């Protein structure tokens, strides 16, 4: 009897070790053992290269490269490509530029677009490595500021004017002499991502960007031609650049989403593994977040043996051109 009980104990003990081993083995290893494709990360990671990412018809982020995580902005909902407000892009590293035309639109249509805004008719341009901002203050006084951009340690961007003209008059020296600061003149009721501290304009991308929401810390900012180039990530940024291995490794311009669950139109993709590549790699992929599905419909998709999907899409501007040439003559 004692012997029999001992045998049962040994058998149960072995079974417990077996179950424990299965539970503790990494998910990817278990998948490998079972012959299934390895599972991606629990949340959706993204890696983007050479993409002009149109947030709307006139604001474009020129993404040289970007690494981060695509999260849901609404608890309990999946990140859904058809609903910009549902998306939260947590940026870990990368380099993104914005033309002054896009930045002008961002300021006029989002940041200072509310009743009683202190600045209106904003026009942003560059002057060498400086930024020039022209605007109408309190709907009456034309102002012009020229200054430099810098990234602050907290990840915000500082615009510090070297010269200020107000109502056509060089004002900076006089303002400094009498202790008058821009923050006293430009009083806003709804900052929306721009704080005025002394003469500085402090911009927070996490607040001032329209949907999709962004969570990012700017680590560097510079002017290149008529573009404002922002970099993200610290000294480990370069390592993050090629962290994910997309199915089409030859593609130069692409967006790759891996892991987690995302939704687009009627599709819900679990353990996401989708790469959107440029059908015309001669220039950056022109991608419209608002019209992305038109691009997918006009493109071609294929599935790889491990379940990944690679979709080759035309540039958005080519699609627009095609659309307008197909319009019947009036």
């Amino acid at each position: 009897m004692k012997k029999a009980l001992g045998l049962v104990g040994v058998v149960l003990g072995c079974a417990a070790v077996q179950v424990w081993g299965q539970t503790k083995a990494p998910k990817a290893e278990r998948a490998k053992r079972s012959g299934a494709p390895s599972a991606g990360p629990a949340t959706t990671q993204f890696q983007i290269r050479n993409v002009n990412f149109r947030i709307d018809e006139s604001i474009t982020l020129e993404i040289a490269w970007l690494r981060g995580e695509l999260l849901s902005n609404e608890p309990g909902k999946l990140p859904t490509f058809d609903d910009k407000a549902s998306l939260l892009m947590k940026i870990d590293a990368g380099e993104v530029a914005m033309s002054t035309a896009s930045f002008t639109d961002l300021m006029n249509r989002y940041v200072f677009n509310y009743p009683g805004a202190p600045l209106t008719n904003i026009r942003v341009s560059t002057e060498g490595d400086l930024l020039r901002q022209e605007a109408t203050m309190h709907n009456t006084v034309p102002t012009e500021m020229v200054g430099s951009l810098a990234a602050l340690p907290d990840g915000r961007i500082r615009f510090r004017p070297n010269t200020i003209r107000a109502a056509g008059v060089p004002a900076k020296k006089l303002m400094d002499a009498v202790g008058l600061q821009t923050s006293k003149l430009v009083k806003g009721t709804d900052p929306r991502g721009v704080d005025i501290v002394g003469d500085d304009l402090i911009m927070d991308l996490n607040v001032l960007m329209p949907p999709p929401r962004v969570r990012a810390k700017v680590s560097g900012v510079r002017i290149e031609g008529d573009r404002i180039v922002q970099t993200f990530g610290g000294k480990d940024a370069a390592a993050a650049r090629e962290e994910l291995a997309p199915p089409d490794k030859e593609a130069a311009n692409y967006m790759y989403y891996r892991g987690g669950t995302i939704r687009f139109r009627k599709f819900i993709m679990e353990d996401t593994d989708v790469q959107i590549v440029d059908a015309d790699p001669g220039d950056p992929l022109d991608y419209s977040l608002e019209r992305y599905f038109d691009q997918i419909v006009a493109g071609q998709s294929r599935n790889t043996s491990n379940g990944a999907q690679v979709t080759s899409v035309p540039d958005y501007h080519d699609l627009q051109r095609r659309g307008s040439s197909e319009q019947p003559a009036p």
Partner: protein
Amino acid sequence: MAKSPIVFEDERLRLTIPLADAVSFAMGWSDLGYRDPAENLRQVIGLLAIDALQRAEQWRLATMLQTCLAHRWPAFEAD
């Protein structure tokens, strides 16, 4: 209605507001709480600001303000 920026004292007029407020008002950058203030009110405040600076012997600053005001009203130009 905003507090008057000017005080009458015997036969002299004096500023009763901070110089920074007077300068921004005279330059047309702020309105001191007035609705659509007249241009001649801005000019008077500008003159009083220059006068206050000169009385305080802030000659350089007075000249700077005078030059700036002359951009708005050429009559402010120094002889």
